[in-house]
């Protein structure tokens, strides 16, 4: 069962359910995952670029989310029933 291998890239196997291209993936997965984990694609924890990249990105991800976004989603939700057509 190849599909279990998908789990290790940090993405749950479930997310791949129903994905096409599984056959291509099947072929690629072995070499692909080795390359990804092997050299960490030269972007892994042993790479200065890789570390900085994550540091840069993690800082952005952990930035506080402004209220405007949850307000926006609430507005969209309130507008929703009116849009129902069928």
């Amino acid at each position, binding site marked *: 069962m190849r599909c279990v291998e998908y789990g290790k890239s940090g993405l749950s196997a479930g997310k791949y359910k129903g994905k096409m291209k599984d056959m291509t993936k099947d072929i690629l997965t072995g070499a692909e995952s080795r390359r990804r984990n092997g050299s960490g694609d030269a972007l892994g924890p042993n790479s200065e670029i890789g570390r900085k990249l994550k540091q840069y990105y993690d*800082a952005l991800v952990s930035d506080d989310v402004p209220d405007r976004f949850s307000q926006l*989603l609430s507005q969209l939700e309130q507008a929703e029933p009116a849009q129902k057509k069928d």
Partner: protein
Amino acid sequence: MAAVSQGFKTDLLGAIPSLRAFAVSLTQNADKADDLVQETLVKAWDKHESFQPGTNLKAWLFTILRNEFYSQMRKRGREVQDSDGIMTARLAVHPAQHGQLDLKDFRGALEQLPEDQREAIILIGASGFSYEEAAEICGCAVGTIKSRVSRARTRLQEILKISGEDEYGPDAISAQVTSSPAS
């Protein structure tokens, strides 16, 4: 049009931090990034029915955000990214000492990359997407993503004067261990 489920809304909320990070990476501008995220959320809401539950929502949202970013760029005509020139001039290029390098320098170097290379290295090296997912998000071939990531990395190393990183990767054995199937 089916109603948007509560779960979908919750998932959208949960994806916002990642969307903002990706948006800043693309635009290099916090205000533009948040506008982009807002557009993305509205679009995602409108076309929620085209999202297949069980597939990767984050990848789906990143695709929308990216498309929005490039269509806005096309509409405006390419704005002169004035920050680029300033950053390039200001960027103090000095060798990384003991593997340490300033995050500000890194950000400056990242800004100098062409968009396609920057997004590729962010998707792969920071957002945690596979090459296949990144290729889908960018609407291009896996090989294209690989070469963009590779060029981005080389370019960053040049700008930041880092060399010889390749030798420090995990050895073949640990690579085998980490790539063995997770039960």
